[in-house]
């Protein structure tokens, strides 16, 4: 499956894990720090994934000190 990452924007191909939660664990991404977007809609952590999916992992952490 294709995974789109941000900051900087890039794409990687990985074998589809069982679900969103496993994908984040495999990529060592803290779930609280991202949204997972599949086909322009949000995906919950229990959603199943397939090799045909294109998934964006969008960071939500922002901001300077002020």
């Amino acid at each position: 499956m294709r995974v789109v990452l941000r900051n900087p924007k890039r794409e990687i191909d990985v074998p589809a894990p069982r679900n969103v939660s496993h994908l984040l664990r495999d990529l060592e991404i803290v779930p609280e720090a991202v949204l997972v977007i599949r086909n322009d809609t949000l995906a919950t952590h229990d959603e199943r994934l397939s090799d045909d999916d294109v998934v964006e992992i969008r960071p939500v952490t922002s901001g300077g000190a002020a």
Partner: protein
Amino acid sequence: MKCGRCRAPAVIEVRRHNAGYCRECFVRHCGEQVRRAIDHFDMLGPGERVLVAVSGGKDSLGLWQILRELGYDADGLYLGLGIGEYSDESGRYVRAFAAERGWKLLEIDLAAEYGFDVEGGSRSAKRAPCSACGLSKRHIFNDAAIRHGYDVLATGHNLDDEAAVLLGNVLRWETEFLGRQHPVLPAAPGFARKVKPLIRLSERELAAYCVLTNIDYIVEECPMAGGNRHLGYKHTLNEIEERSPGTKAAFVFGFLERAHERFAAEVAEARDELRPCAECGAPTPGDVCAFCRMRARAVGEPIGVRSIS
């Protein structure tokens, strides 16, 4: 996963609330959390004019939309910070957002109005870029709210921002900053009232709100913020939150309920010692405020030669 409210398929889970939400229930949840924060902390009164500081990011654009949907008379304020392509792009997002909705947007350009940008201010004042940026925003937002006659200035600080700032202040026992850390800073001579209506929403909830309501926001991080201490605190707190959902909210709201008052007296004392800046008139503990000192250094002027016009 099902929505905990209506049993429709969920689009997002919020572990802090041990709940999943469908789109409609989640959008309603965001509005309810902002309403609850406004009411609990007495942030806004009926009929008051609100100026929302907007950056093009998810938090400020989300806040502006939620306030308007709750019925508030809210206009936007965008400050161009001169951070290269990043500022150009963030400005485009803000202008498109306001134009699509027909909402009033005030714009100020740091370089055009004050003669320097964030990088120049940072270099000349020997401050970290985020510090120069924060100082400029605090000064100019306050000045704009007063000058344009708004009752209150609203910023998009969310639960994660407040938790990260609180952690930083506690780790270094910044007692004056702890006394000032509150979702409402009341108006005082030279200061507009400032409120943080997003304090009950995490930044993940704000990002989800924007995606679900089709708010197009700048996803890229500010190129100057990378590796700063504040982002490190957020990362640490998110790892703790992952193991123990609800920790960030317990940290922030526990502080506000049980500890803030202990530090508030120090702030009141500091406020009593303020006098008008010799250059701009803003309240300051010295002769010339920190923003005017930074501006003078950045443009190569001696400090204190300008006077209030």
